[in-house]
Each structure stands twice: as structure tokens, then as C-alpha cells.
């Protein structure tokens, strides 16, 4: 499988300014040396707690934000391999025909003053692909593909339910027939009963159109079922990447373990919860020294406080942990584990 998108060492920081003269008082490293690969035709999950930079990554790929450093290589069917970080306007416009975004909240990503025809047809109209009757036919076809009646074409989003609206967003994203779809938490604003429908629709469309998804999410349960590869991010850094199945069976990074342990399971009263991460996500403006996760990590040692671990390759996975080889972490199916011996040391470290 060739890589459709390759992110290499991308950095992005936002400066914090204060006072009337806008003096820079600090910076937030939203993305700190982020690298991962999205193979063509697969689904890659980008997970982490809120504020870890996963949405920033999505918008940087789409060109809404400009990366400070690094490369985002996109394999465009027409232009070949292009670096989106250095892309000029022409390349940007060209590549966007092949990459579209599905937004989190369909209530805010659909202009309430436009009909479905205008909304779904907008990308086609702007890029001069179709117009007039042909545009209408194409929109009707798209509506059918996402399971909406063509009678809705002249309706406004407010006349639809949340799930229907998200289908409109999906139809809009697919209008230009893109190769890559960046889905920014596409189901987190939906009712639980609608979430499964929407995911199934996305799966079906992927099979029909050989789509590639970059699936940004914080719901590990969904990521487990939906993605082929998972990228775990923590405070702007990638801490672990690897095939989803293997990672959920046996995570290599303590943060991955904590995330997996925090997935709510019916019938699981006590098991797993012990390993869920304690404490709050530290401020990205003032991240901890060394390994960012060390204040919350039950396995942390002195080296973790002092040295930033590198992203190491372990088999078909990579992990950013000093003790990846030594730790034996629990995955999703592992039985309840005895309390971790070093829990006492966390309370000592003052959390």
C-alpha cells in the first residue's frame, strides 16, 4: 500500500501575547514533531484527549493553519507527490479537490441560510466542475448515496435532524470525489443511536469509492472498530502509532494503556479503571519537562522527568517511551490486573 499522506516532523506553535502592545509572553506548542503515515485506502485514527493537537493537525493538513516546520506530503493523482507545507495557492487549490473535511458539529458547519442544493453543490460550483441542471443531478445522486431523499434538496438544514445534517456534511465532503477525507470527530456531536448509522455510512462509502480516512476522535471504542491504524497524541506529540488491533491488544505506551482502560464497558465495574490516567492534562503552554506524560504516568522514573524519549520503532509500531520494551501493559481484552505497585509513588510526587 502506498502512502496517500505522509506527515513528517510537523511543528506548529501559537504565540500567547498580552498587553496593549501584544508582547509575546509565551507559546503553545500545539504540534511538536508530529509524524505519521496514512496509507491509501485505509482508515487512520488520530486519538488523544482534548487539547492534544489532533484537530490542529487536521486543519493544518487542510491548509486552514500553516505549519511552522516539517513536511506534509500528499500523493496527488495529478500533481504527484507535493509538500502541502510549502504549497503555493495553485497547488493548494488543486490538492483540495482531492481532500475534504467532515466537521464535528453539523449544526455549525452548514450555513443555515443555504439550501441543501447550495450547500452540497457549493464545492462543485466554486471549482467550476458542474453547474445548472448537471449540478442538480449530481447533488441528487449524492443525497441518495448518503441515504437522504432527493426531495430534501431545496430544504434548509434546520428542517433536518442532527443525523441527517451530518449526512449532508458527508455528501458535501464527497461532492468533489476526494481521495482523502479528514473526519474531525464526525460523530461526537450526534446521538448514540445515530453514531453507528453514520459510521456504517462512512464505511460503505469507503468501500464504494476507495476513500482514505484520517479519523480524528477521542472515543477509543469507535477508533477500535473503525480504524486500521491508530496514532495516539499527547500534548502535541505522537506517543504511539501502530495497527489498531495490535495496539488495543497490547499497548506499548502507558498513555495508550490509560486511554484504552478508560473506555467504558458494560459490566465492567472495577476492572480497568485503576489504570485510567490520573490527574488533568497539563497546560500546553507550560508542558512538563522530559516525557510530557510523566506526571500522570504510574511507571515514571527519574529519566522520564529529565529526558524527552524519541519515537522508536518497535516492529510495525513506533512508541515514544523509555521503557516500551520493559513494560507489560494491559490492553482491551486483558483480565483485571492487580493494582499497580507504583501507585504510591504518584501520590508522593504531589498530584
Amino acid at each position: 500500500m502506498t502512502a496517500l499522506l505522509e506527515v513528517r516532523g510537523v511543528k506548529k506553535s501559537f504565540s500567547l501575547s498580552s498587553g496593549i502592545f501584544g508582547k509575546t509572553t509565551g507559546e503553545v506548542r500545539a504540534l511538536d514533531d508530529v509524524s505519521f503515515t496514512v496509507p491509501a485506502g485505509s482508515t487512520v485514527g488520530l486519538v488523544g484527549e482534548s487539547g492534544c493537537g489532533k484537530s490542529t493537525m487536521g486543519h493544518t493538513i487542510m491548509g486552514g493553519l500553516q505549519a511552522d516546520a516539517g513536511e506534509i506530503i500528499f500523493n496527488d493523482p495529478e500533481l504527484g507527490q507535493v509538500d502541502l507545507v510549502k504549497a503555493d495557492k495553485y497547488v493548494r487549490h488543486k490538492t483540495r479537490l482531492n481532500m475534504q473535511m467532515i466537521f464535528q458539529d453539523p449544526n455549525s458547519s452548514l450555513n443555515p441560510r443555504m439550501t441543501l442544493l447550495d450547500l452540497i453543490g457549493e464545492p462543485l460550483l466554486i471549482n467550476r466542475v458542474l453547474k445548472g441542471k448537471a449540478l442538480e443531478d449530481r447533488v441528487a445522486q449524492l443525497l441518495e448515496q448518503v441515504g437522504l431523499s432527493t426531495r430534501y434538496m431545496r430544504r434548509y438544514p434546520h428542517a433536518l435532524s442532527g443525523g441527517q445534517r451530518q449526512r449532508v456534511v458527508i455528501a458535501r465532503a464527497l461532492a468533489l470525489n476526494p481521495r482523502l477525507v479528514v473526519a474531525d470527530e464526525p460523530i461526537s456531536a450526534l446521538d448514540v443511536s445515530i453514531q453507528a448509522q453514520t459510521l456504517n455510512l462512512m464505511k460503505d462509502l469507503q468501500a464504494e469509492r476507495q476513500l482514505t480516512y484520517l479519523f480524528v476522535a477521542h472515543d477509543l471504542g469507535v477508533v477500535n472498530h473503525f480504524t486500521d491504524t491508530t496514532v495516539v497524541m499527547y500534548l502535541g506529540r505522537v506517543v504511539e502509532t501502530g495497527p489498531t488491533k495490535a495496539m488495543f491488544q497490547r499497548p506499548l505506551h502507558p498513555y495508550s494503556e490509560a486511554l484504552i482502560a478508560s473506555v467504558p464497558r458494560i459490566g465492567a465495574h472495577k476492572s480497568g479503571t485503576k489504570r485510567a490516567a490520573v490527574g488533568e492534562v497539563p497546560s500546553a503552554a507550560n508542558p512538563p519537562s522530559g516525557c510530557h506524560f510523566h506526571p500522570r504516568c504510574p511507571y515514571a522514573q527519574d529519566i522520564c522527568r529529565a529526558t524527552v524519549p524519541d519515537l522508536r520503532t518497535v516492529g510495525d509500531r513506533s512508541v515514544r517511551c523509555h521503557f516500551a520494551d520493559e513494560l507489560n501493559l494491559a490492553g482491551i481484552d486483558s483480565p483485571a490486573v492487580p493494582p499497580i505497585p507504583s501507585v504510591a509513588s504518584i501520590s508522593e510526587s504531589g498530584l
Partner: protein
Amino acid sequence: MTDIAADAISAAPAAKAERTTVLSVRQLTWRKFLRNKLAVVGLIILVIMYLSALLAGFIAPYGDRETHGQFARQAPHGLNFFDETGAFHPVPFVYGLKRTLDPKTFQQVTTIVPEQKYPLQLFVKGQPYSILGLIKSDIRLFGVEAPGKLFIFGTDTKGRDVFSRILYGAQVSLTVGLVGVALSLLIGVSMGLITGYFGGWFDNVVQRVIEMTMAFPQIPLWLALAALIPPTWSSAQVYFAISIVLSVLTWGSLARQVRAMVLSLKTSDFVRAAKYSNASTARVMVKHLLPSTMSHVLVIATLTIPSMILGETALSFLGLGIKPPMTSWGLLLNEAQSVQVIIELPWLLIPAIFVVLTIISFNFVGDGMRDAADPFSR
């Protein structure tokens, strides 16, 4: 509102969906507006006012410059249904008037002549007039046969019919606000869009300019600007100059509100979605940002018109606004400046009632529009 939306959603079964009509945002807004009874009343009053201003020539019994010299300072002189004997007249009439000089005080005294009765007539021949310069006629809606006179609101010091002059004055007073608001909308909205979207040094400069115009005391600034209008200008030129003067002070707050809305909207998801679809800046502004601010802008505009009408009235009252031979409500009130006049001719204050009625109606309509502007909120 909710039931309509719910209908549309539950309309998935084919047969039912055929009959469901889907309301656009505009229709929803209109429905919500109609629920506010005060706003509807205000709107009706305004529609009547603007219609009568448009048809002033037809409705007014006399021309705006038509003088009745011998009947100057005449008190309102109304229609009667019952004559001096108590007999009922189905068609109302006015008594004839006679002017005599009081030998003691040397003042003009008007006495009613009971023998002369002039019944009210429809479509009488009067002074020729034209409506918008298109329709020319001399048929007026109502009047009495000469030499009878019909002065519903009395006459002024020069013997002109106040009722007719209020109708003609409405043409200026009611429209100068609209022209002024249109101007400040044009400047305010485009400035707000540009400064909100691009920011930077231009935004900074514009904001400081707005602050300066806002910090200026309003009346002196208006006076200073109005004083700049050359006295040689024609009535029409003065009219537009006054509306420009009025809009100078209002475009700023409008620009700020639009700017604030654009600042929050430009990072909204639907604007991002448009950008990720290669939408140009112009398209984002015109198709996405502008329509989203429009309902709010219209509300502000409606609430701004009254202050513009008041502004014109104030300027004309002070003699710096509309100049004769044009008429406006402010100019009519200008005649009632001295206490002496108010005591002797209190009916010259009647135009103020129309000013108040207009302002209140606009405020009611504005309130109704503000509530209706977002049809999705309850």
C-alpha cells in the same frame, strides 16, 4: 416553529413528505414577527404614513405652498355632522368663515357663518400636483367647494393649511432617515466586513476614526457639518447633504457590530468548510458572512431610522437642515419656536405628534424584528 421543523423531519414517509411545505428562514422570521402584535401595529402605522407621504398631493386638500392669506392663524376648523339646530347631516360639512377686525384689540377675529354650509366632497378639483413626477393630476381626495375652506389642523402664520403641510413634510422627514440609513448601511457594512475579516493596521485606523466620531458631541458636530452646506445649493442637494451628515455619525456603530459578528463568524465551521472548498475571499464574504449578519444589520438599521428622523427634525428646527420652500416636520416645528406662538397657535405643534408616532412605530417594528431575527431561538 418547532412543530414545523418536527413536521419536516417526521415527513420521511413519501406520501406525507409531498404535502409538507418547507419554510425558508425568511418565512420563519416573518411568522415570528407577526406574533408580536405591537410590532405589527407599528408596521401598519408606518405603511399608512409612507403611503400618505407618497400620495401627499392626492390626499392633502391643498398644496404645500398654497396660502389662504385672509385666513392666516386660523384655528383647526373641523367637520360637523350636526348643524346649529341639531339636525343630522349624513355628509359632514364645514361652516363658512368670516374674518373681521376687532375694533377694541385690532386683532383678526374669525366668526362662523351658520348660513354657509359646505358639504365634504370626494375627488374635488384643487391645485395641480404630481406623484413622483410620474402621475400628474389636479383631482384631490377630498375637499370642500370654494369659497369654503377645510383646515383640519388649522393654518400657520402665513395662512397655509397645516394638515396638507404635514403630509408634504412627511415626504422629506420620513425618507431622509431611509436615505441616511441606506448610506450608513453601505459604509458601515462594507467597513465592518473588511475590518473584521482582514484586521491589521486598516482595522486599527478605522476603529480609531469610529471612536473619534463617537466621542464627538453629536449636535455640535451635526451643526458644524450642516453649516458647511453652501446656501446656494438647491433643495434636493441640501436634502442629500443632510442625509450624509446624519449618516456620518451612525455608520461607525454599525461597522463595529458587523465587525464583531464577522470576527466570530470567520472562524466558524461553515466558513472554514467554504474555504476548504477553495471558496474565494469575496465569495466567503458575500455568500457566507454577509447573509449571516444581515438580519442583525436590518434590526439595527430599523432602530437607527428614528434617531435619523429626530436628527433631521432637530437640524431643521434649528434652521440648519431642510430649507424652504421644501417642507419637513422639523421645519414646521421651527415655526413654533417662540412661547408666544405656542400660546396663540398651539396647533402648530401638531407635527410633533406625527414625529412621536413615527419614532414609536419604528421602535416597535425594530423590537419585533430583533425578536424575529433569529427564528430558531424561542
